[in-house]
């Protein structure tokens, strides 16, 4: 130990410089930091959402809704296919996650199955499971069509990817601070937005499916007839948010949909000065919209967003230019949000919130302050205690070890941009306080060896060597518990584990090398005859 290898000194010096360099940006004011030369590191500690304020939203794709939607579309395909082939059927419906129907004529039954197996049930190359759906027969000419599980799983996976794309587009257009969007597991999407002041707005922009359609209002049925529960086939009752009526009876047929839009902008109506959303259709959509308005002058049509009528204007004249306007009950903000949603497109799969964690920026700032104060007080107490117990020299050595250790932790965390959370601060304080344990083990071992009758130099040597095994063993336990927290925990707990793990590594480093180098220097410089702590 006392004949110090050069590389150890170099390593300690390098580590200290590294720690200093990467810790520095954290204590500099932003202005000075920006003015630093290019080779200097500038990144500060990456604070978790609980410290800087923000929202963490965990969504899951609603697989049940997705399955039903896909099956409903498929049922329509079946209907047209059988109509073309003149196969009579009844009871076509989507129930319990599969399509069921009955072929009316027994003679057509096997033919019908064949048709289905060669159309929607045909093997498809590249689809997991070999085909998308399986067609199975039942008694009484019944047919059941269900998704092949692997194929549906792949469908979900694709839908999650597409959803992430759409969300990213939406958020990009909102112009807020860039959130982190990441996929979690099979069917989940995690969105972390720092500093977003209004999580509800973020949620309304992210979570809305935003399926837009234009459908005709059916005015042929009176309210009394409706109240008695008589909904004509091909119609549906939709809730309304337009402020004029609670609900509308509309034709199921969607004349134009949001997919046929090329642009959407929030503007102001030239006459009333109310915020409106102006739309531009593509060629096909514009033509369809023109036809609809020309044929139905004087009637109402409904602008439907996610199965809710947002506006139901009366057509005053044909609109043929491929432009339209939505007059809803908008504020400037909500008009703008709707335009964003329409531009970015609908979510391929509906989503729901599984978990939300929002912390206000002020609360976060308070937490940072509290964390900093308790860190300073806690470490000061530790240092005073160590100096009292071991004196200026040995206590001082552990103090220097502690400083290098702290610099390295903060440096590594700034450098790797690991997230520092509030529990992480607690972990940091605890790690540093217990880091002196390594020094204590070394010092106590040296005293033991001295008492066992060794001379000074050999007891320092032996004490150091023997303590090292214990130090490694003891710190291994922290690494293990941190590893478990990291793999099982989420968010703040992960931050805690990460801080703990980095702390253990730097602690072992500073115990093994920093303490050793300092002790060796002291020994060389003073050639002591006695150990000041024995």
């Amino acid at each position, binding site marked *: 130990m006392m004949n110090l290898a050069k590389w150890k000194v170099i390593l300690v010096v390098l580590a200290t410089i590294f720690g200093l360099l990467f810790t520095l940006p954290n204590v500099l004011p932003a202005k000075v930091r920006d003015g630093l030369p290019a080779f200097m590191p500038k990144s500060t500690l990456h604070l978790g959402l609980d410290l800087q304020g923000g929202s963490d939203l965990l969504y899951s794709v609603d697989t049940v809704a997705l399955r039903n939607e896909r099956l409903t579309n498929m049922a329509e395909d079946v209907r047209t296919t059988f109509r073309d082939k003149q196969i009579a059927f009844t009871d076509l419906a989507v129930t319990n996650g599969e399509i069921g129907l009955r072929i009316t004529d027994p003679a057509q039954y096997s033919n019908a199955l064949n048709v289905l197996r060669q159309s929607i049930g045909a093997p498809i190359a590249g689809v997991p499971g070999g085909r998308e759906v399986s067609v199975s027969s039942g008694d009484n000419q019944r047919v059941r069509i269900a998704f092949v599980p692997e194929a549906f799983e792949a469908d979900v996976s694709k839908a999650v990817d597409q959803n992430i794309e759409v969300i990213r587009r939406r958020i990009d257009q909102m112009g807020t601070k860039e959130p982190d969007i990441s996929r979690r597991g099979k069917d989940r999407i995690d969105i972390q937005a720092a500093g977003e002041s209004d999580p509800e707005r973020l949620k309304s922009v992210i979570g809305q499916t935003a399926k837009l359609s234009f459908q005709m209002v059916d005015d042929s049925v009176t309210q009394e007839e409706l109240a008695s529960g008589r909904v004509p086939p091909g119609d549906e009752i939709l809730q309304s948010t337009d402020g004029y009526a609670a609900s509308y009876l509309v034709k199921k047929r969607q004349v134009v949909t949001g997919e046929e839009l090329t642009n959407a902008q929030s503007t102001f109506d030239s006459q009333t000065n109310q915020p409106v959303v102006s739309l531009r259709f593509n060629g096909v959509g514009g033509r369809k919209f023109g036809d609809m308005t020309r044929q139905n002058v004087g009637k109402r049509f409904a602008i439907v967003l996610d199965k809710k009528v947002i506006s139901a204007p009366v057509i005053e004249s044909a609109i043929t230019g491929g432009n339209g306007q939505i007059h809803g009950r908008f504020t400037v903000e909500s008009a703008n949000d709707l335009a964003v949603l329409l531009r970015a497109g609908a979510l391929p799969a509906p989503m729901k*919130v599984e978990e939300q964690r929002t912390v206000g920026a002020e609360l976060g700032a308070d937490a940072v302050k509290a964390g900093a104060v308790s860190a300073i007080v806690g470490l000061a107490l530790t240092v005073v205690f160590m100096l*009292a117990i071991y004196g200026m020299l040995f206590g001082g050595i552990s103090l220097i070890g502690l400083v290098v250790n702290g610099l390295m932790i903060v440096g590594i965390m700034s450098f790797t941009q690991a997230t520092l959370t509030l529990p992480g601060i607690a972990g940091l304080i605890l790690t540093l306080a217990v880091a002196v344990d390594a020094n204590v083990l070394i010092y106590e071992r040296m005293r033991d060896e001295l008492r066992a009758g060794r001379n000074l130099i050999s007891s320092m040597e032996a004490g150091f060597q023997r303590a090292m095994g214990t130090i490694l063993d003891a710190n291994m*336990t922290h690494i293990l518990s941190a590893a478990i927290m990291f793999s099982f925990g989420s968010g703040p707990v992960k931050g805690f584990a990460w801080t703990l793990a980095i702390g253990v590594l730097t602690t072992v480093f500073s115990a093994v090398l920093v303490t050793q180098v300092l002790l060796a220097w002291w020994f060389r410089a003073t050639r002591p005859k006695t150990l000041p702590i024995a």
Partner: protein
Amino acid sequence: MHFWPLIKVLPVRTHFRFVRLAKVFSTLSAFAIAGSLFLTLYPFKLPCGGLACGIDFAGGTVLELTTAPKAVDTEKVRGALEGMGLTDLVVQGINGPSSAMVRFQAPRGADISKTVATAQARLTQSLGAVKFTRTDVVGPKVSGELLTTGLMGLGLAILLMLIYIWFRFEFRFGLGAVAALFHDVFLTFGLIAIMGRLGQFEFDLKAVAAILTIIGYSMNDTVVVFDRFRENLRKYKRMPLDEVIDMSINEMLTRTIITSMTAVLALIALAIFGGPTLYGLSIILLFGITIGTYSSIYIAAPVILLWGVKRNDEEAEPLQPATVQR
């Protein structure tokens, strides 16, 4: 007379007969464990038994709001949320008169996101200028997963520690260490249950992290004592086992006390200055680290005594000396 550095005036070598008291203390501990287990489990209600279940594991919504500088009218808060079909509604003041915490479960099957939005809208309407400083929502699916992974994490941690000690020492040492670990974990659960009943601390992810940290520290202490114990076993082959244990504990006593003291000092600072979020966490850690120290002395070592260790030379060979060759 020099009083400084203090290490010089601390007794050099103590000769406490720890093992002699082991019976008394392990009986005490057994009672404490039984009590803790009861408090933790009773009234056997899923998912958290007798612990005050945080929303991490129970699911639900927590809103923290402030109407500063006005005082919060908790009755008004309650009234605003009436008729929404919310269950387990709790409204209580936190950190001074102008802040409150609202906790509830959305009605079964409802869209939790919409429920929260409605609740916030109603509160804003009824209280006027209100700011939501924290919104935590955990859906039923996620809370179930968090509970399973949390408990799995605890189980796995204990298992890993057993394997590690087994690997580094010997199986019987591992048993002693794990006995100490269970002791610490159960008693900590007991404390969490008591604090929960007093409305001070909830069993949530942070609590699990605290327990995992305690596992780490308790093991750390145990390993240090075991290290010396193993060394002395080899050194004094003919000394009775209980004396070796006593000697090892006494030899490490200074270190044990100093290290626990630094941890305790830091945690006290954390409890006083760390704010409400860290207060519960630091109390739990403070308790856990203290009993972790106690259990390495009074649980881990006596369990080894109970089981005995292999001491003849060939058998002892796999025990490597605790030094690192450099």
